[in-house]
C-alpha cells in the first residue's frame, strides 16, 4: 500500500516536472481558450447585452475545445518513447496510474483555465454572480472533460490523424456537461437557484472519476497491443 502511494506520488511529481520543463507549451491551451472567446465578439457582435447572454455558452465551448487541445498529447509522448508500455508492465493497477496522470495534467491545464476564466468573463460582460457560477462549473466540469477526453485520447493513441477522430468521439460525451454548466451560469445571472445543476455536475464528476479510469486503462492496453 505504501509502495502504491509512493509510486503515484512520484508519477504526479514526474508529470509536473516534465510539464514544467516544457513550460512554453503550457500556455498554448490557455491562448487557445482566450482566442476562441475573442473571436465571438468579432464574429457575432460586440453588443454588451448579446455578449452577456451568450457568454456561458461561449466560455464553455471554448473550454471544451481547449481541453481537447491540451489532452491530445496526454499519452502520446509516453506511447512513443516506450514509457507507456513500462507503465502497463508495472506492478500497480493501471487505472490508479491513470488517475494520477490525469490529475497531474489537470493541475497544469484545467486549473490555469479556472484562473483565466474570470478575465474572459469580463471580456464578455458577465455579471459577478455569473462569474462565480462559471468558476464553480469549471471546477466541477473540467475534471470531467479531462477524464472523458483522456478516454478518447487513449482509444485513438496509435492512429496517425487521431485529432479529428478524437473530436468526433468525445464531443457527444461532453454535451451533458455543456448543457448543465451553461444553464447553471445563465440561471445564476438571473438570480435563480442553481443547486440542481451543480449536483448534476458533481455527480458527473464523481462518475467520471470512478468509471472512466477503467475504460481508459482498457483503451491503453488495446492501443499498445
Amino acid at each position, binding site marked *: 500500500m505504501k509502495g502504491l502511494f509512493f*509510486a503515484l506520488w*512520484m508519477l504526479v511529481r514526474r508529470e509536473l516536472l*516534465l510539464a514544467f520543463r516544457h513550460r512554453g507549451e503550457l500556455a498554448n491551451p490557455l491562448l487557445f481558450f482566450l482566442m476562441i472567446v475573442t473571436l465571438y465578439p468579432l464574429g457575432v457582435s460586440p453588443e454588451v447585452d448579446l455578449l452577456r447572454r451568450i457568454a456561458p455558452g461561449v466560455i464553455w465551448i471554448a473550454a471544451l475545445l481547449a481541453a481537447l487541445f491540451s489532452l491530445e498529447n496526454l499519452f502520446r509522448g509516453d506511447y512513443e*518513447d*516506450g*514509457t507507456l508500455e*513500462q507503465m502497463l508492465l508495472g506492478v*500497480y493497477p493501471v487505472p490508479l496510474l491513470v488517475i494520477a496522470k490525469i490529475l497531474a495534467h489537470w493541475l497544469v491545464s484545467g486549473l490555469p483555465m479556472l484562473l483565466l476564466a474570470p478575465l474572459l468573463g469580463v471580456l464578455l460582460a458577465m455579471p459577478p454572480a455569473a462569474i462565480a457560477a462559471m468558476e464553480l462549473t469549471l471546477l466541477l466540469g473540467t475534471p470531467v472533460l479531462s477524464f472523458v477526453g483522456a478516454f478518447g485520447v487513449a482509444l485513438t493513441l496509435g492512429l496517425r490523424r487521431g485529432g479529428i477522430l478524437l473530436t468526433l468521439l468525445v464531443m457527444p460525451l461532453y454535451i451533458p456537461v455543456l448543457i448543465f454548466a451553461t444553464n447553471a451560469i445563465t440561471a445564476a445571472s438571473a438570480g435563480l437557484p442553481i443547486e440542481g445543476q451543480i449536483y448534476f455536475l458533481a455527480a458527473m464528476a464523481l462518475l467520471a472519476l470512478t468509471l472512466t479510469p477503467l475504460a481508459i486503462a482498457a483503451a491503453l492496453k488495446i492501443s499498445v*497491443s
Partner: protein
Amino acid sequence: MGILTARNLECVRGDRALFSQVGFTLSPGCLLQVEGANGSGKTSLLRILAGLSRPAEGEVLWRGRPIAEYAIDYQAEMAYLGHALGVKADLTALENLLWFLPLAGIRLSETAALTLLARVGLAGYEDIPARKLSAGQNQRIALARMLARSALLWILDEPFTALDIDGVALLGGLLDAHLAAGGMAIITSHQPLLVSCLIEKLVLS
C-alpha cells in the same frame, strides 16, 4: 522445472499468420534466442510473451498460470526491454531511474541509483538529460533500470543494436551473471551472442 511455458502461440498480421504453433519451456539458467528473418515476427513474439499483445491462438503460462489472468504477478518478476526504451528524453539518467522504478514497486536511494549507473558505465553522466546522450547511453539507462528490478525473467528485443563494443561486453557480462544466479532471458539479436551459458534457439520461419 519450467517456469515459463508458451503453448501453441499464433500471431496474425492482416491476413497471414506470422507464425503459428510456437511453443517452448524455459527453466532457470536458460537463455532463449529467437531468430528469424526481418518481418518474421520476432518482436511480435516477444511482445506476446511480455503480455503486451494477445496471441491469436495459444497462451503463455508463468508458474503454471496464464499471464493474461495473473498479469501483475507475472509483471512483478519480469522485465521487458523493447525497441522503445521507456527512457524519458527530458529527464536525466538519474531521474529516469529514481522516478520510474517506483512503478515497479522499487524504491531506490540516490546512492544505490548512482552505483547502478556506474555499473552500466554511466558514471559521470548521471545528471545529463537523456536527450543529450547517445542511443547507446540511453540503452544503458534502460539496462540499469532493468537491473534494479531484480526480475527473474528478462525479455530483451535487440538489446545489442545500439551498444558499442564495451556495451556489448557489459551486457554479455550482465546476462552471464543473471543466468548464473538462476535467472532466465529471452533475446532477439542479429549478432552472435557472446555469453558463456547455454543458448537455446528458436527459429521463426
